[in-house]
């Protein structure tokens, strides 16, 4: 493994009975980067994360974290990772502070340092007021923050966050994002799973999309968006015009949708340079006056659905011919 890769996954395969959770997954994360692991429920995100954090053994394939093999060097891996998982992984019957001190002690900090570190984190995560309340009484947002705080106790160089903002209100969400960016600025490497595309878009340097245990896309958010090559066009006219739809038709894939008042027109378009200019010229040529033209880039959602739908069919066909060879789908 190169010095630059802090997480390296090669042909990772895991079955639970008849269910294939991972069917040969490969990716890597360079030092100081954030990788977003995306996919629908059951795509294999959590399984991948559990293998990387030494909680689950892979059936086949290799995974290295901070240079250590997750199977043969699990103890060394654990000295280098922090994990904030989806489930309640803190102790409900302890206070926030007691939870942090406990994790710190188990991570090898001396008692006095454990207390100091807990105080530091409580302050940074704005949990000082709730520090001595039982976890039971915490709100969802406070719990998430404490969970993330607990993962940072030992200042590990590699961090794993499993859906770190699921169920959070927008403010808490923005806070967690800011924390994660801060960590990376300090040199940490982060792998996060998410169902939210905007989260991946916002945070991740690179995105790996999983579906049915396979990598179906791997690239930056921009690269993934560019892949579909489509955009959405929305034109607002000064007043309804009978020629407007016909003037737009050459650019639009499929039908042009016209609003009831006839002033707004919409359609899917192929992205190209100068599209807005061309559209306005064409409308002007037809003597249509335009108030507004918007070309929406394909959102990561569009990309995601395009990818997962298309791939599902491809994967099913593969399975039909029994071609489950476990070749990394990268």
């Amino acid at each position, binding site marked *: 493994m190169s010095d630059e890769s802090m997480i390296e996954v090669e042909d990772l395969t895991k079955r639970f009975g008849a269910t294939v959770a991972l069917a040969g997954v490969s990716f890597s994360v360079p030092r100081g980067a954030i990788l977003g692991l995306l996919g629908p429920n059951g795509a294999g995100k959590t399984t991948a994360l559990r293998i990387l954090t030494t909680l689950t053994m892979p059936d086949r394939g290799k995974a290295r974290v901070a240079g250590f093999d997750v199977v043969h060097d699990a103890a060394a891996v*654990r*000295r280098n990772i922090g994990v904030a998982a989806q489930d309640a992984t803190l102790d409900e019957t302890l206070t926030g502070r007691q939870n942090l001190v*406990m994790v710190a*002690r188990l991570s090898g900090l001396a008692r006095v340092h454990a207390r100091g570190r807990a105080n530091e984190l409580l302050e940074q995560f704005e949990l000082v007021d709730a520090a001595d309340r039982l976890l039971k009484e915490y709100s969802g947002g406070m719990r998430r923050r404490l969970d993330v705080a607990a993962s*940072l106790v030992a200042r590990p160089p590699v961090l794993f966050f499993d859906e770190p903002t699921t169920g959070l209100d927008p403010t808490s969400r923005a*806070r967690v994002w800011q924390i994660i960016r801060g960590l990376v600025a300090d040199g940490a490497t982060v792998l996060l799973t998410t169902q939210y595309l905007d989260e991946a878009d916002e945070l991740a340097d690179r995105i790996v999309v999983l579906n049915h245990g396979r990598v179906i896309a791997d690239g930056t958010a921009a690269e993934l968006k560019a892949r579909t090559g489509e955009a959405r066009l929305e034109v607002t006219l000064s007043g309804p015009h009978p020629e407007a739809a016909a003037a737009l038709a050459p650019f639009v894939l499929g039908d042009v949708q016209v609003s009831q008042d006839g002033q707004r027109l919409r359609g899917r378009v192929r992205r190209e340079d100068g599209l807005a200019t061309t559209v306005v010229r064409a409308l002007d040529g037809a003597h249509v006056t335009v108030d507004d033209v918007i070309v929406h880039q394909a959102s990561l959602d569009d990309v995601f659905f395009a990818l997962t739908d298309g791939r599902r069919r491809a994967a099913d066909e593969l399975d039909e011919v029994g071609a489950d060879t476990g070749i990394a789908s990268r």
Partner: protein
Amino acid sequence: MTTAAPLPVAPRIRQPKPPRLRSQLRDVAVMTYRNLVHIRREPLQLSDVTLQPALFTLLFVYILGAGVVLPGGGTYVDFAIAGLLAMNLVTSSMGTAVGLSTDLNTGVIDRFRTTPMWRPAVLVGRSVTDLLTSVMCAAIVTITALAIGWRPDAGIGAVLGGFALFLLFAYALSWGCGCLGLVSKGPESAQGIGLVILFPAAIVSNAFVPTQRMPTVMRVFANWNPISVVTDACRQLWGNPNPSAAIQTWPMEHALAASLLWSFGLLAVFAPLAVHLFRRRTTN
């Protein structure tokens, strides 16, 4: 985090450390402390080592004691206290099963497992907690017993030896209960199965009545039952009435040796089994 300074994270990769006894003991202490905090938060959980032992001691001595005539003489209270200690400690060792099973059904074990801690500390910490509650249970039975007239007829060393024998047995048994907690689906089923096994075992013994007049099958079981063996040994040490001394089976004739054998035997079987089960249960 508007005011937060950047969080300092060490990007340096840490090399593995060989496990050291000191850090293992620290992990055990951390786990034990955590369990004790739980108990303090929910003191009702403790009723089976506080209220129940006192209540059982009074009930058994005054109700059963009214009807039992001991072969060889002696008062029922002097006879019964060792048996009551045995029964209360045996049922309280189920705390290990319930506690472990509860932990396994939450995500907290996963959190532990991603830290570099010594993993068996989860089990050892649980058993140490159980030992501490056993001490409390024994103290409550003893105080109640002293209040209603129980007196050992032996030196201080022998009296303490008797308690040590019981606590050792309870500790060994808590590892067995730990195994039960590790294979059961949840805390309720762990408790249910534990009771079904342990309660009859405590009754079919010399704890409350002499075994001489039991039906044959039960008598044979009772005379080899570790609960009888430990109770017998303790009555000898305390100089309390001990009808079992007259029974000619090996464990009754060599009660002290037999109770040590039982305790260490249970430990030797169940401690490694618990570690194995824990590993199996927490992988995949």
